[in-house]
């Protein structure tokens, strides 16, 4: 199958992968994690990447976010081509242009919630934009928790701190790796709501890897991966629609 280019029709592009491939090992033990994937992530859009375990969804995100190296193709964030960057420049890029929300271990236990939120700017040696910071904190509802340490916060609150940290430095793009994977459904819904609001109200770009159809339904667009390839996409998804599509892949995977 030739590589399809999944691109939003009109909008500007925040990140773009072209003919991206990632291969682990050599010879007989060779595993292809990404097989010539080309995809655009639109600016001001909330994109979800879905797929079964081992489909390469996390690898795709890691490569596009500058966390992992790739074997072939190219990746751009804004105007920057990642393939030519050294570790130092990649680090700087992540610091200045990308926000991250991980499944767990998002926060430093020695820092307060506020210090965690401003950590990327602290690392960059920049002063946070106080007005913006206040509105982000207000949005995630942490105003009265800023002096607490992570161990004094619930799992949902911790993840809200992580969302605030990702938003606070106004990155060009935010990547989430199963950001609700460790949360109960109510806290998960809250966090996803914040992410969607940040896209709708603040024009933020968000890319999120998930295996949960409900989480994916918060996105504007869902990309489906299987065996290292993009196999489908869905715009304005609903949880049921996503689930049906997933079931279809599963069935196809089993019969083929």
């Amino acid at each position, binding site marked *: 199958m030739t590589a399809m280019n999944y691109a939003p029709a009109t909008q500007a592009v925040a990140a773009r992968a072209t003919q991206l491939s990632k291969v682990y090992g050599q010879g007989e033990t060779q595993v292809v994690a990404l097989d010539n994937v080309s995809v655009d992530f639109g600016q001001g859009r909330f994109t979800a990447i879905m797929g079964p375990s081992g489909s390469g969804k996390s690898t795709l995100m890691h490569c596009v976010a500058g966390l992992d190296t790739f074997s072939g193709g190219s990746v751009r964030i804004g105007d920057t081509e990642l393939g030519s960057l050294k570790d130092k420049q990649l680090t700087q890029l992540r610091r200045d242009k990308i926000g991250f929300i991980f499944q767990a271990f998002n926060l430093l236990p020695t820092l307060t919630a506020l210090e965690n939120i401003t*950590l*990327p700017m602290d690392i960059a040696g920049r002063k946070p934009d106080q007005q913006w910071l206040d509105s982000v904190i207000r949005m995630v509802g942490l105003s009265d928790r800023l002096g607490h340490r992570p*161990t004094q916060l619930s799992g949902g609150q911790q993840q809200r701190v992580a969302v605030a940290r990702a938003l606070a430095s106004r990155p060009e793009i935010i990547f989430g790796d199963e950001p609700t994977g460790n949360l109960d459904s109510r806290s998960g819904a809250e966090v996803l709501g914040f992410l969607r609001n940040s896209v709708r109200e603040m024009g933020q770009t968000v890319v999120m890897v998930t295996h949960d159809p409900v989480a994916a339904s918060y996105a504007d667009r869902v990309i489906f991966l299987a065996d290292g390839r993009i196999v489908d996409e869905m715009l304005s998804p609903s949880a049921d629609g996503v689930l049906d599509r997933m079931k279809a892949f599963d069935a196809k995977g089993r019969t083929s």
Partner: protein
Amino acid sequence: MFRTALRNVLAHKARLLMTVLAVVLGVAFVSGTLVFTDTVGKALSGQSAKSFDGIAVSVTSHGPSRNDEGTKEGEPGISTQTLDKVKALQGVDTVSGRVSGFAGVADPSGKLIGSGWANRGSNFAPVKDGKDPRYAFTEGNGPAKADQIALDKETARRGQYAVGDKVRVASNGLPSEYTLSGVFTTEDGQVNAGGSLVLFDTATAQKLYLAPGFYEELSVSAKPGTTADRLLAEVKPLVGKDATAKTGAELAAEQAKDIERQMDTTNQMLLTFALISLFVGVFLIYNTFTMLVAQRTKELALLRAIGANRGQVKRSVLAEALVVGVVSSAVGLLAGVGLAVGMRSLMDSIGAKIPAGPLVVSPGTIGIAIVIGVLVTLLAAWLPARRTARIAPVAAMGSAHLPATAKSLVLRNSIGGALTLFGLAGILGGALAGKDGKMIIGGGAFLTMIGIIVLLPALSRPVIAALRPALRKAFGVAGKLAAQNAVRNPRRTAVTAASLAIGLTLVTALSVLGVTMGKAVDRMTTDKLKADYKISLSGGFGGLDQSVIGALAKAPGVKAVSPQQAGSLRFGGGKEFSSVSGVEPSTIGSLLNIEVVSGSLDSLGKGQLAVADKTAASQGLKVGSVLKAAFDDDKKGDLVVGAVYKEMDGMLSPYVLDYKLLSQHEEKPYLPEVFVKMDGGPSAKAQQALVDALGKNPAMNIATQQDMRNELGGAINTALNIMYGLLGMALIISVLGVVNTLAMSVYERTQETGMLRAIGLDRGRVKNMIRLEAIVISLFGAVIGVVLGTFIAWAVGQTIKDGVPHYALVVPFDRIAIFMLLAGVVGALAAMWPARSAARLNMLTAIKTE
């Protein structure tokens, strides 16, 4: 379970390596000390036994004795007549008599050969066919005339002297020239240890060292068939009560015992430091096992879940410690033997020749090394092992690390606080008690040290918090995070810092005391001495001849000369001796800065006595008091106190007299030093004039004030350097401890570090963060050590200050700054490997690992 333990040892090689190293170092230090002292002791006693070969009975004179009234009777030594009487005994084969004393040999340029303390002279005492059994001549013969001498081979070689050459030799007076009649080798320990030996003919040696016709010592050999004991019984009545007769075997045994005692002292000192190293090592081992257990909580919980009981889990950890202990003790023992060999060749290379002999590795040494190593390891692993019993089987499913509870620190802090308070009270109490408080201070210091170590976790937070703003300012985020990470696990930080704290407490205390003493000596020479030069015999042993005073007075440019003669008097008919300084009344005032409290020093010239103020007060003396005094020759007379002066400890005895008066009553006045003042102060020319006046005598030490300060200060510095070297071992072990702790921290914070890297902290700053954490922990230990050490030094100073003139505590800030710098370097070095591995972490696995 033992097999599990063994597997674990192998599985955690890197971490255990630190523990192994700590035990190896400690055990190597202990066994090295034991092997070294055993080996040297055996070689020395072997040598001394050899020197008594063929001696059946030896007679030693102890000089004239005093009877019940305190007057002197008897002869200065063993007379020739006595020797002849011994010789006439039936079982006697040969008898040789000896006298000995200082003799310095000049090399052709006039300088002394050898170090000064082992430059000896003795008599050549031929017994049979013109040979002296003690000396084997390789060239020429023994001295037969008054102007002949023989030299040991090494000294002759160093002076490039051949038989027939003229050699300048000085005993305690002016030097004379002799003709070299022969060169010999000998078994004498001092000569073999780098000293020099000059042989005179017997009459000359007697004149130089004792009195014509007298010997200090007789060596008697027996004819075949006569036992030493029978001979001893016959010799004893002949020598009277002024000399002791013993068999050669007895003497050899005594000397062996002496050597053993001396080696014991060395042994104890070295072992003390070895034990300090081991003590420091305990913290490292404890830390390692704590971490191993923490790291393996899940594994151990799994064992519990599938049915192992608490005891089994605990024993598996102890078995692991046992394996580590046995292996590292064995390696340590081997390393110790190597260390002993190294020490011996080191001693050889610095000139202190140790007689050759086999390496002695006694079963005792092996036993002690293994037992100590294993015990220390087991002891240190005991608490962590006990903790495993508390691991619940369910922990196998949950998260691994449980944070330390604040509650247990409360108990710990109360214990530490109580210990510290008791210790401090002891130190203060001891300091107030003055001289008698030494033991109390010692105990108090030990308690305080333990207390502070127990308190370290509590202390770590405020101390490191104080550093935080500076770190933040200098290093930004990396500094801020490092400071916070350093206090994240206060117990671990404390244990890591403890080894440095202990080492630096000792180093600082010794440095402060050493520098304080050095400064006191400096002050004494600058404040109390007006003379430009002090003349004494090289090496500081033995007295000068009285002719030196006259010779110096005649030298060009000399303004004032006074001897400082050491004598003794008995006052009020008692038998107790009081030491007296004999000085030249007309000049002493311009040579020493004597503060006269009452009376006048001129009174010394009238044969009156000067008394130190403290002694005058305690004896109830004042100017005009009359004392009944008995001199050394038992002549009695009344002495009038003519002056009272401010005490000059270390410079003058509490009583001062005209030296000429003192000399009249002494057979051989003892003159340790002469003070000289020159016109226009010290200069190279002035010094040359003195050298010339003394007949270019190689044995004379002409010291300027600076030389005197250097001499004493040098000794203190050497002692300090030895201490630093020995305590360096403790520092090495602390480096290992810091490495260990950081490696563990890096391991535990894998995910965190991955996250930091993901959100934009670059490798350089990750490294910096780890390095700074190490430096912060090290500096924390160092600060505690420096403060505690200074405090202990102050307390010890309080107990000795009465005995040290011009005592004032000096804190050597320059040295302390160096210690702190070193501690920082220790931290930076220790962080090298953990920092690298943290920077190299793969972000993805770091974030993903659950």
